[in-house]
């Protein structure tokens, strides 16, 4: 159990570190015109790159919960 927990922490630390590397890279190393949005350029009329980062983050949180349930099953 303890070994699983250690692996869980390591994998998720790497995962969130990767997320923040992508976030920093896209926010600082990409020119401002990449963020230029018009009604037409939004994916399905709604999704922007900023919104995509929010969804990305919440998916990582959801996967964290799923992994916790796999390690510590309720039943």
């Amino acid at each position, binding site marked *: 159990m303890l070994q699983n927990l250690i692996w869980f922490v390591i994998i998720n630390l790497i995962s969130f570190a990767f997320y923040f590397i992508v976030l920093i890279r*896209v926010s600082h190393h990409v020119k401002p015109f*990449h963020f*230029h949005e018009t009604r037409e350029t939004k994916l399905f009329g709604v999704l922007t790159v900023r919104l995509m980062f929010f969804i990305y983050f919440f998916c990582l949180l959801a996967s964290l919960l799923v992994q916790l349930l796999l390690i510590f099953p309720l039943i």
Partner: protein
Amino acid sequence: MRIAPIPQEPGHSHIDFTHVDEKCLLFFRKHGIHLFFSLTRYWLVALVTLVALVYLQSSIFNEAEYGLLASDGLLILIMTYLLIVIHSFFLTCINYFLDFIMVTNKRVIEVHKTTFLRDEMDEIPFDFIRAIHHEKRGILANILDFGTLNIESNVYQRISMHFIPHSDQKATKISEIHGDYIGIPERASRREEDMR
């Protein structure tokens, strides 16, 4: 002189240019179907995972003989697999937003960029543009209204942009902006309309 309206919503990020007196007249990305095709492998992964889960549910889980599935190693492997798939999926989505085509009052700019591995930019100044044409091929392209836009220059440079939404309208618009730049008078059809 006819100037296309600037497609910029108030309160959004500004656009920086090397040329001071340059402004954005047209800005667009590829059609959403391009992202759908880019994500094909993830749809396949999701399908395979679903089939595997249904198989496991009907065979191993049902008979309660977990065997290898009860091992810690497999659990860690599944967790890693899940995270790699999530990261790859969202990186593909974010990379979609980093490709775009921009038409300013001086040039056409096409940018191909990915988060880590690629950063390319092509541009054709309006002085060198020789021809602008578009094509729509296939049932899907005609139903969803996307196509290929080609811009050729005098110096044998060519920008081919695939999966462009409303490619016919975009070609017309670029043609108009180009006409304004090089000083071509209004098209004959428009003159006729004005005379009526």
